[in-house]
């Protein structure tokens, strides 16, 4: 079982006991039509688009895998049914996930778990979290423990007196 950082603590993601990764990944290409009918399932956007009704009908929680450049309009209809949105970070210096997270939180009111996965490193955790991510699958899960300190950096920013300052 891989560990992830969720709400600033290291947790074993143990919803789905069958796999090392509790979220069973299905068909990156979206062409694999089959998926388990129960359990927590993390599906690519394409599969959601192809099998929307079947996915809604199944038991268990549902998560969506998206890329930083995906358009929220393409999956806004899924948001109310999702317990997890996992945004892929292809390269740690690719900043698109940051803006997408803000849009999901602020514009679409998404309140479920928002996870960054891929090239996710300790020194980006702070800003990612301030943009709305609350869950992180590190590139190197073994470094989760030492990475927690990142959340304590630049704490003064949260104590800024004016709303416009905190909005940044």
């Amino acid at each position: 079982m891989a560990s992830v950082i969720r709400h600033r603590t290291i947790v074993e993601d143990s919803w789905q006991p069958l796999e090392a990764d509790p979220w069973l990944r299905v068909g990156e290409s979206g062409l694999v039509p089959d998926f388990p009918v129960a359990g927590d399932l993390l599906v690519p956007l394409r599969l959601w688009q192809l099998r929307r009704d079947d996915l809604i009908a199944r038991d268990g929680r549902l998560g969506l895998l998206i890329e930083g450049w995906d358009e929220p309009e393409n999956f806004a209809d899924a948001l109310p049914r999702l317990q997890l949105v996992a945004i892929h970070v292809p390269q740690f210096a690719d900043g698109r996930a940051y803006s997408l997270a803000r849009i999901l939180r602020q514009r679409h009111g998404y309140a479920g778990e928002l996870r960054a996965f891929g090239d996710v490193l300790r020194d980006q955790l702070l800003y990612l979290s301030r943009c709305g991510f609350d869950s992180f699958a590190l590139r190197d899960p073994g470094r989760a423990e030492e990475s927690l300190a990142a959340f304590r950096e630049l704490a003064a920013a949260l104590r800024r007196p004016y709303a416009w300052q905190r909005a940044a």
Partner: protein
Amino acid sequence: MYTYDDVDQRLVEERVAQFRDQTRRYLAKDLSEDEFRPLRLQNGLYLQRHAPMLRVAIPYGLLSSRQLRTLAHIARTYDRGYGHFSTRQNLQFNWPRLEDVPEILAELAVVQMHAIQTSGNCIRNVTTDHFAGVARDEIVDSFVWCELIRQWSALNPEFAYLPRKFKIAVNGAAADRAATFAHDIGLHALKNGAGEVGFRVIAGGGMGRTPVIGHVIREFLPWRHLLTYLEAILRLYNRYGRRDNKYKARIKILVRELTPEAFREKVEAEWLQLADGPATLSEDDVRAIEARFERPPYQVLADATVAALGACGAWMKRNVHPHKQPGYAAVSVSLKKTGVPPGDVTAAQMDAIAALADRYAFGELRVSHEQNLVFADVRQADLQDLWRELRALGLATPNIGLLTNIISCPGGDFCSLANAKSIPVAEAIQRRFDDLDYLHDIGELDLNLSGCMNSCGHHHVGHIGILGVDKHGEEWYQITIGGNQGLTRPGAPAALGQVIGPSFARDDVPGVIERLIEAYLARRESDDERFVDTVWRIGIEPFKEKVYGKRHQAQDHRRRQLAAA
């Protein structure tokens, strides 16, 4: 001068602690070169040809004497005793050791300074008119707005990993002294018919490989919406700016690919979602920032006509500027003495300038994007004394606005990206034009020099621009004429220079400049017509002819023959 509040202070201190830890982990090989790069860049640290380079932010060019003394101390302790003022109102140290940088940043934090986001693919130090707050043609004092932008952009978590660097300039006067059309975003602070403050928003300007004059995307943005509108532009850029090719990653390319009209529509649509959101400003917000600015306690004086002759007279004419407060003047401290690299200052000079600022200018100074310093508030009665002291320090060269006030990047002597050196070229030109009477007769002329296409010396917008190019491993120089940094006088908008022809070897450059000047002097209609005005009136052909002579004519002749055949 803006004074930090407790949170501002805490933030820069926490930033130092963060970077200290990052540097430690890098040196311990916990962080790879690639992983460390954006972290150090966002703390101002480049790794250059000879040594690291640390770029210290001087937000909107405003500096206190106390801060300048700290910079002098850093230059002496961690560097080789000098610093270099850049075209973006920053100060660069060229020789610090990586291991020392956290300590240097800690020393800066003590005097409310930092190096946050002075490089890297993020929102850079905001720049403005070096006469903000004192210029007679000022419409809106830009400092408060610059400080708001500084606070909003510094450590903004959403925009730390943009496709490319992002530069914002603000100008609040009739004349554009901040080159707003050559920035990713340019803002003109102005007032509408009802006297309310707002901004004309310009986007997509820039230099570099593909120079572009920015497009006005909004004529009047009420001040409350300043930050949400910036947020909309930055968010669009962050999401849609190209990341596949770093030469096409600036916002100007996005604006061009979408077309300015479509870009404007997208910005407005995004902004509609953000308008009146949490980043909307209230009067209290602005007042609170304004209250942290200490303004000079002016005396009630009358304007005096200061009669000065000779060298002091020349200095008064070129380096002293009108002030909106009667009895006061702004003074340019020229960092363009022949033989000194443009923008360079020694630690001893910094200390001396700080002392002069205390005695003559309320302890404040500004850095201009022309790489000079400015005492913004000097009593007219003190001008002659100040001149004497500056002259003794070698800082009274009366050349502001003239040909030898060369704007130059550090070039091949320091910068690892350079195609060619720039400092020796600047010096050779200064030597060629060392006759002061001749220089003053030539009149206003911006000469800008960049060592490569990155255009740190803003050569595209120089009346004369010089660009270092690489020809089969040799250093050559391409020359443009007719550029202009912005609406500095009515009818003279921002413009990009045109290339006059094939490039030149280094030794030929001063001679070429001389011939351009001769062509101008022979054709100008009056003493008031500047070099660039003449270029605009008659076109570049007569200048080409003067420079390339018969060869050029012969080529043209052949081309005509070919065309006729």
